[in-house]
């Protein structure tokens, strides 16, 4: 997500998408115009994110250099040297120009706290977040689609009311609380339930390799994924349910039934594909959201990902790192929105012409 959020990569990805999508749809010029508009919008958004991230973090109270040297006796000259080193002594506009120029080249500055390039830190933590959120999004999208379809097809029935009720209840639960509760019940162990799962982290660190390592990571993955899925699947369910309900009044379904198709086929081959359209968009947007949304789950489960890093960076405050992560989180959102926007006309010929 980091690399893909740079404009060049977005442009490349977009180019590939446009060229393989256009011939199939026939009206390639219309699609290209649509795509170019969306791409331009995304670039403007990305620039706005850079501007915000820069100015927002300049107004954080507290001197980052003082925070960095907290507890270490430092002379005034040493403080000045550090300021110069991080470019904090330059005028604001110059800092901003430097920042933008570097960010476009992929350089997000140096972390105060870890004394390492922000880009490197983020790249190091990115796989863990991608693994966690990727697994969670796949599971809750599938779950939401399946339950949403069932709910809508038999709407008003007991199953529907139960489904919606449970989903809404879980949606109202704070994710970090659910995570803590799961740790108490399934990791620490409660009553007859022994500690089944590890309390946190991504691996035991006992040096397994190969398949044993994969199993170990999967074992650590269970509780955070369960937390994210429980809190998140309601959204997919409700969108799928209401968009399928919108389709269910359609005349084409009556036609399909009149042709003598079984109820199952009407649902699977006719209603669901149409109802999927808004839901697919939803899933992409969720992908963008969930990276930022996992801040709490990662903090609670000490998962070594971007969310945990964000929490660490906030407490210092480690300006360049917070800034970099903010750009990455927002960039991920913009990218996913862009993909959804570009995909939509390909899936639904009625849109964007």
């Amino acid at each position: 997500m980091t690399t893909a959020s740079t404009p060049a990569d977005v442009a490349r990805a977009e180019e590939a998408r446009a060229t393989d999508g256009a011939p199939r749809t026939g009206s390639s010029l219309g699609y290209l115009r649509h795509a170019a508009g969306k791409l331009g919008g995304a670039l403007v958004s990305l620039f706005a994110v850079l501007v915000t991230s820069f100015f927002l973090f300049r107004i954080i109270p507290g001197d980052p250099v003082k925070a960095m040297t907290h507890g270490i006796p430092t002379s005034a000259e040493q403080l000045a040297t550090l300021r110069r080193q991080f470019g904090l002594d330059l005028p604001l506009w110059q800092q901003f120009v430097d920042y933008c120029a570097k960010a476009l080249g992929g350089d997000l500055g140096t972390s105060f706290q870890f004394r390492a390039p922000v880009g490197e830190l983020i790249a190091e933590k990115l796989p863990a977040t991608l693994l966690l959120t990727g697994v969670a999004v796949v599971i809750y999208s599938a779950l939401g689609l399946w339950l949403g379809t069932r709910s809508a097809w038999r709407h008003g029935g007991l199953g529907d009311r139960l489904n919606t009720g449970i989903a809404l209840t879980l949606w109202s639960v704070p994710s970090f609380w659910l995570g803590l509760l799961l740790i108490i019940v399934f990791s620490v162990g409660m009553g007859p339930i022994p500690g089944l799962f590890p309390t946190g982290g991504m691996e035991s660190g006992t040096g397994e390799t190969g398949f044993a390592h994969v199993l170990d990571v999967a074992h650590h993955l269970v509780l955070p994924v369960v937390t994210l899925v429980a809190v998140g699947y309601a959204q997919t369910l409700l969108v799928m349910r209401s968009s399928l309900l919108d389709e269910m009044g359609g005349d084409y379904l009556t036609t399909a039934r009149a042709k003598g198709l079984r109820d199952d086929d009407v649902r699977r081959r006719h209603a669901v594909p149409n109802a999927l359209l808004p839901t697919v968009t939803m899933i992409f947007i969720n992908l963008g959201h969930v990276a930022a949304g996992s801040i709490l789950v990662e903090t609670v489960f000490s998962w070594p990902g971007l969310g945990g890093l964000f929490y660490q960076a906030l407490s210092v405050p480690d300006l360049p790192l917070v800034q970099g992560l903010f750009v990455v989180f927002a960039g991920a959102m913009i990218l996913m929105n862009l993909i959804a926007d570009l995909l939509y006309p390909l899936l639904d010929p009625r849109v964007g012409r």
Partner: protein
Amino acid sequence: MTSTEPTAPSGTTASSGTTPATESSPATAPGKKKPPPATASTPATKSSLTWARRRSTVARFWASYRTRRAGLLGLAGLALIALLALTAPWTVGADVQSVTQAPGTALEPPSAEFPLGTDQFGRSLLGLLIWGARISLLVGLLAAVLSVAIGTLVGIIAGHYGGWFSTVVMRITDWFLVMPTLVLAIVLATVMSRSMWTVVLAIGVTSWPTTARLVRAQTIAVESRPYIERATALGGGHGHVMGRHVLPNVMPLVLAQTTLGISTAILTEATLAFLGLGDPTVVSWGGMLQDARDAGAVSSGHWWYLAPPGIAIALVALAFTLCGRAVESVLNPKLGVSR
């Protein structure tokens, strides 16, 4: 939940999400145009006509709301919780927060004296839970009102003026819509000083774009009606049209948005408090969870400390969601059928 989600997608889907909302106006529009016939025989003043009309609108709304069982359940839950929160000064008293005059010893399990046990300072958890309802509800309410107020203002202005101005405003709105709301709220809460108002502000200014989009669509729909043309022909200015004609018509939508927004705001408030970004001087449910974690309630398995605040948050958020969905389906009959 579909069209009113804080994370509602922008662009293509947002426009499809707003179409049902524009149809919610017939619920109020007929009431606006023809006054009740009863007033025709008696000489009535303008204000009594207005009030009769409002009363009948409310009555019609309630008659429809009453048929929604989930909505009634949510309303009953809210009434109970609001009662508990409002009477807290007499039932538990403000000194329940006091660390120095705590009645019990640290981390007692539930007992007859302390039905939910005590925290690490020896304070009664039940008392704290009831007292915490005040701040959670207050912050949720204020933040949702702020957010919806900003959204309504932006939406009406963008919808009324149109043109390049509207394009720029909606561009900014779209940009806010793709911002990771929670991250932005966390950053804002970090940047500003720790107080309740900071939390209200951080939630309010990050969560308004959905409302703005919905209100703008509704404004455009209302302004295409003939009576707006009549008002302008009679010399009504921008302020008159926006204030007297558009605003009353978007109010139902705003009401539904506020109710749904409160549950999100309460969850966000709890999240910020849990991250230590809330007001440290007052007790809130999120703050209690943070205290519980700090006290090692997780590793020592003190579930009685951890469970109640979370359940309270979930119940209040659920109650507001149920009410909001019911209000939404009353105002938007098409949605009502499908839900």
